[in-house]
C-alpha cells in the first residue's frame, strides 16, 4: 500500500473490486429495504442528489465558500508560520520569545477555540479565515523552524566562502535548504485547515460543505448529507493531489 504513488491501472484493478462489492451491496441492501432510508439511502438516490446539487450550482457555491475559508486561512498561516519559524531558527531573540509560546500553543486542540472565535470575530467568513490561520500556523511554524535549524552548516559555510553575504544567505541557501520541511508542514496543515473549516461551518453555519451536511441531518434529508460528503471527498482528494504535484515539481531535487 502506498498512498503517495501515481495512479497504477493494474494495481487499481487488483484491488478496486472491494469498492465495487461495497457499492453494489449498498445499492442492493437499501433497495431491498433492509436498512432504513434515513440511515442509508440507496447509492443511486445519493448520486442523483449529488448531480442535482451539482447541476443547480448549490454544491459549487458551498464548495467555493469552504475552499475560500480554508485556502485563504492556510495562505495567511503559511506566510506568518514560515516567517516566524525561520526567524526562530536564525535569531536568538525571536527564538527566546516564540519558543515557549510554540511549546504551549502547539498541543492545544485548536478546534476547541471555535466558540472563542465566534465570540471574538462572529460567525462570518473573516472569523472562519482567522480561525483557520491561527489553527494551521503551529504545524507550519514548527516545521519551518525545525527544518531551518537542520540546514547543513557546511552548505552555509560553502556559500559564505563563495562570497554570499549574511542577508542574502536566507534567500540563496537557508530557504531552499529548508523548503522540503516547510512543504511537509503545509501538507500537515492542509487537512487541519479543512477540519477547522468544516467544524466551524457545522457549529456556526454560514454556508459551506460542512453546513450543507448538517442541514441534511437537521432537515432529515440524508441524501443531502451523503452528497455533501462525496463533495468533501473530492475536495480533499483534489487539494491533496495538488500539494503532492506541487511538491514533486518544486522539490524535484530531493
Amino acid at each position, binding site marked *: 500500500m502506498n498512498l503517495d504513488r501515481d495512479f497504477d491501472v493494474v494495481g487499481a484493478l487488483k484491488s478496486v473490486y472491494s469498492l465495487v462489492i461495497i457499492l453494489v451491496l449498498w445499492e442492493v441492501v437499501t433497495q431491498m429495504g433492509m436498512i432504513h432510508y434515513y440511515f442509508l439511502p440507496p447509492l443511486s438516490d445519493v448520486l442523483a442528489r449529488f448531480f442535482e446539487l451539482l447541476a443547480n450550482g448549490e454544491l459549487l457555491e458551498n464548495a467555493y465558500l469552504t475552499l475560500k475559508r480554508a485556502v485563504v486561512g492556510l495562505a495567511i498561516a503559511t506566510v506568518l508560520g514560515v516567517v516566524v519559524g525561520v526567524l526562530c531558527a536564525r535569531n536568538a531573540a525571536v527564538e527566546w520569545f516564540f519558543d515557549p509560546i510554540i511549546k504551549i500553543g502547539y498541543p492545544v486542540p485548536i478546534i476547541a477555540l471555535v466558540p472563542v472565535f465566534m*465570540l471574538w470575530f462572529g460567525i462570518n467568513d473573516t472569523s472562519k479565515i482567522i480561525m483557520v490561520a491561527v489553527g494551521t500556523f503551529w504545524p507550519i511554524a514548527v516545521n519551518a523552524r525545525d527544518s531551518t535549524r537542520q540546514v547543513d552548516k557546511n552548505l552555509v559555510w560553502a556559500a559564505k566562502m563563495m562570497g554570499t553575504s549574511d542577508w542574502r544567505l536566507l534567500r540563496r541557501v537557508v530557504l531552499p535548504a529548508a523548503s522540503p520541511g516547510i512543504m511537509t508542514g503545509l501538507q500537515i496543515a492542509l487537512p487541519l485547515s479543512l477540519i477547522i473549516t468544516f467544524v466551524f461551518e457545522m457549529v456556526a453555519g454560514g454556508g459551506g460543505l460542512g453546513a450543507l451536511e448538517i442541514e441534511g441531518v437537521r432537515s432529515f434529508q440524508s441524501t443531502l448529507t451523503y452528497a455533501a460528503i462525496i463533495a468533501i471527498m473530492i475536495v480533499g482528494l483534489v487539494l491533496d493531489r495538488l500539494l503532492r504535484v506541487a511538491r514533486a515539481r518544486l522539490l524535484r531535487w530531493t
Partner: protein
Amino acid sequence: MSNVNAGTATALPSGVRSAARFVFDWIPLAIVTLLWEFASGTAVPAEVLPAPSVVAGEIRELLVTGEVFSHLFISLFRISVGLGLSIAAGVLLGIGMARLDPVENFFEVLLALTYPIPKTALVPLAILWLGVGTRTAILIVFLACLLPIVMNAYNAASDVDQNLVWSAKMMGTEGRRLFWKVIIPATIPEILTGVRQAIPIAFIALVSAELIASNQGIGYLILTAGQVGNYPTMFANIVIISAVAYFAVRGFEIGRERGLVWT
C-alpha cells in the same frame, strides 16, 4: 575522593544556573500573560477576554466543586475507547495488509479513497447512524486515529528484517507463533510512533464531535458556556482540555521511553 568533592562543589552552581535558565526561558510567556491580564477590562472588554487570573479562579472553582469531572470523565472515556479500538483494529489491519496480499487488495482502495476526507466531516453521518452522544464521539475518534496507526503498522510490518524472520524459522517458529513472537515485537516501536501521532488527532476529533453532536463532555461545556455568555467557564474548559491533551502526549512519550529500553 577528590572527584566526588569536585562533583558536589559544582552541583549547586549548575543547579542554580539551570533554574535561572528555566526562568529566563519562560519570561516571554509571563509577558504575554501579564499583557493579557492588563488588556482584559481595559483594551478589550473583560467578557470578551477574561483575565488569566479570572480564568485560573474559574478552573479552581470547577475542580474544587468537582462539576467538571463528570464531563471530563465522559470525554476521557470516549477518547480512550475510540483510540483503543483504533489501535486494536489499526494494528491488525496494518500488519494484515503488509503480510497478506488479499487483505491488502481488499482495503487498499478503501483507505486510499477515504484518507483525504477529514474525519470530523463524518460527524453528521455518525449522527445519522448513532445519534447525538458518546457512540458518535467514539466512532469519530476511532476513524480519525485509524489511518496513522494502520500506516505505521503497515510500514513496520513490511520492513521487518528478513533475517529475523529467517532465524526464527530456523529455530522452528512458524505460522501464528511467528506472528506473535517476531512480527509484533519487531513492529512495536513504529506502532507506538503511530499512536503518538494519533493522540493529538484523537483530541481534535473528540472536541469536534462534542462541539457538534453531544450533550456532555468538555467540548460540549466549552460550546454551551460560550452560548450562554459564561466566558470564564469557556476559557477554563479550553485550558483544562489543552492540559489534558498535553499531559496525554507527554505521559505517552515518557511511558514509551521507559517501556522500549531496547530501542
